[in-house]
């Protein structure tokens, strides 16, 4: 099982410490290496200098041995860690420092030893002491000898070790400090989240108007807060819409119920002629019809909401569909001496459920006819909107829709003018159904309107590639 700290703060700190420790270790390693190399270089440099000095001190003894000139006390025999060996090329030992105590610095020399530039190398004495050794070939009077000078590496390692100790001691302290610092930093950075969470828990369905306070909307947390606030805004809008819907729906249901009830009650108060009763019942039935239509529209919408409606799609020219829709309601326009003009490219096709989309178009036209003055002109225009979309616009010359109502006209039961609803008939669901119909086909409906200057409803739908095979299939049904 992996270790996983409970909160983000600790996780952040842990990561921070781990990364920092890794980096520190790497840094310490590289620094030590450089230090060691430079120490050794200095060490070697001294060694090579000593080789030269010792060369000058060599003297030949009459018995064939070699000895050191005693006038150089500074590198005299007793110096610890300073070893000298002199060999004849034939392999006989000519001189050996006493401090070596009989140990050899590597036995008789090979034929090549000391011929090249004397590069010091590390070797080990039989007693385990590590030494730095340089060799050179030298002539003492006429005799060729191989000179070996070695330093014990003890000093080198000691100096290096001291440095290492400092590093090792500092490392945990640095990491510990970084840990505390990181924790404090993470805590500070995350504290807005805590306060946001506290605020968010206080926001409920009843208090959706509250928003999170944002200190800096530009930083990451500020952006998160903004996103959250936007979401709250949408939620609030949805709740408001639902509230309005409930209120409006109960109004729409109560109105016909009230009518039925009062018409019935009043009719029963006194004796009437059969014709009168017939009239009363007929009037009640009209309200029933209204309620029936209302419940069916609501049902249609709720089925649509639940995604239970299957679209019977076919390829159809949008212009043709507009004409079909217009043919249903054109008599209404004729009655008001209104002119419905349909323009556009008949080759623009859509792949849609004909009945459902026609209903949407009929609804839009019905609205336009209802709200436009007698004798006005209603324009239906089908246009291409690039490769992907096709537009259908219904433009009327009505009174327009005030700005404050525009966002809601597609809401269920929303009425711009609540008082005039009954004389117009209709359920107050027409535009909601229209919007659903358009959106179910992957389209979009927008309203552009200015008070006093008419309204334009624009439906945009994905364009269908004109296809002969599917066209003939669709047409043969």
């Amino acid at each position, binding site marked *: 099982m992996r270790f996983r700290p409970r909160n983000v703060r600790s996780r952040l700190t842990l990561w921070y410490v781990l990364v920092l420790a890794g980096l520190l270790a790497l840094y310490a390693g590289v620094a030590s290496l450089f230090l060691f190399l430079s120490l050794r270089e200095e060490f070697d440099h001294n060694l090579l200098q000593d080789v030269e000095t010792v060369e000058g001190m060599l003297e030949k003894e009459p018995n064939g041995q070699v000895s050191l000139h005693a006038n150089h006390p500074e590198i005299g025999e007793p110096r610890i860690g300073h070893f000298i060996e002199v060999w004849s090329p034939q392999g006989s030992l000519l001189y050996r420092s006493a401090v070596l105590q009989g140990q050899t610095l590597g036995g008789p020399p090979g034929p090549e030893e000391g011929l090249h530039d004397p590069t010091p190398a590390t070797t080990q004495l039989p007693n385990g002491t590590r030494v730095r050794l340089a060799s050179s070939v030298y002539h003492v009077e006429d005799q060729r000898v191989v000179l070996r000078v070695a330093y014990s590496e003890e000093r080198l390692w000691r100096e290096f070790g001291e440095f290492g100790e400092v590093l090792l001691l500092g490392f945990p302290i640095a990491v510990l400090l970084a840990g505390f610092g990181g924790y404090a930093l993470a805590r500070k950075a995350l504290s807005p989240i805590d306060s946001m969470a506290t605020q968010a828990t206080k926001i409920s369905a009843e208090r959706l108007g509250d928003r999170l306070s944002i200190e800096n909307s530009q930083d990451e947390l500020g952006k998160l807060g903004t996103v959250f606030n936007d979401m709250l805004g949408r939620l609030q809008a949805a709740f408001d819409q639902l509230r309005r819907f409930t209120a409006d729906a109960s109004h729409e249901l109560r109105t016909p119920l009230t009518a039925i009830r009062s018409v019935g009650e009043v009719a029963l108060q006194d004796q009437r002629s059969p014709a009168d009763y017939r009239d009363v019942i007929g009037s009640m039935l009209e309200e029933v019809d209204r309620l029936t239509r209302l419940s069916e529209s609501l049902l*249609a919408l709720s089925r649509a909401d639940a995604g239970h409606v299957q679209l019977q799609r076919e390829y159809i020219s949008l212009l043709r569909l507009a004409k079909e829709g217009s043919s249903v309601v054109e008599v209404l326009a004729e009655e008001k001496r209104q002119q419905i003009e349909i323009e556009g490219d008949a080759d623009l096709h859509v792949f849609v459920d004909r009945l459902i989309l026609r*209903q949407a178009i009929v609804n839009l036209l019905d609205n336009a006819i209802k709200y436009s003055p007698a004798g006005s002109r209603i324009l239906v225009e089908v246009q291409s909107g690039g490769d992907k979309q096709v537009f259908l616009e219904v433009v009327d010359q009505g009174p327009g829709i005030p700005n404050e109502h525009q966002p809601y006209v597609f809401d269920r039961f929303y009425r711009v003018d609540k008082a005039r609803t009954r004389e117009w008939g209709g359920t107050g669901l027409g535009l909601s159904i229209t919007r659903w119909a358009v959106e179910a086909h992957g389209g979009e409906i927008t309203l552009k309107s200015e008070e006093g200057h008419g309204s334009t409803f624009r439906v945009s739908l994905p364009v269908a590639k004109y296809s002969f095979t599917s066209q003939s299939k669709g047409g043969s049904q």
Partner: protein
Amino acid sequence: MQEAKSHWRVLVVEDEAKVARALREGLEREKYEVVVAPTGEEGFFLVNAEEFDLVILDLMLPGRDGLQVLSTLRKRGLQTPVLILTARDAIEDRVEGLDKGADDYLVKPFAFPELLARVRARLRRGRTEQALLLKLADLEMDVATRKARRRGQHLELTAREFELLEYLLRHKEQVVSREMLARYVWKESARATPLDNVMDVHINRLRRKVDEPFDRKLIHTVRGVGFVLREEG
């Protein structure tokens, strides 16, 4: 030339007393003999024991579900036509009903004229009459040539007006509801489409052409229900 009605027996399986009573009265007025069963069990028993020409079956019944009654009925090989009444509008319900052997369905709340029309259609089945010459009093329609005349005078009708008059004439002396007109004349299945005003305009125009020039009116509005084409009497 209405079919001989007196001997048609109709079983109504419906638990809602008011609806059952209305159905009984409405059907009896049309000279059907009506038996009402208030539960599925009873309906099931009756349909086994007696002979009916048509069963009107509510789907939501206490005791035995309407669909169960229907499928048992069909399993026993009884071919009585069944007209389903359902408050459940879901398409799956309809499909299931038709699968189990129902002949037709109506969604509640239905318009009574429509129920009558469906009942007539079921009972007339087998001899579907698609007469090409229709007649009521001095009104004549030739569906083949799409000509309409009244008292020998040619009536200038638009296509929609012709279809509307034809539908009314095919159902002469029967009240035709707005739903029926929407469905069969405007081919609009969704009642959400705002067709009422459209219908009113068309009926008015039809009146102007068919009735106004003549002293006897044939097109009548039955307030709250629909329209009927008949000689006033």
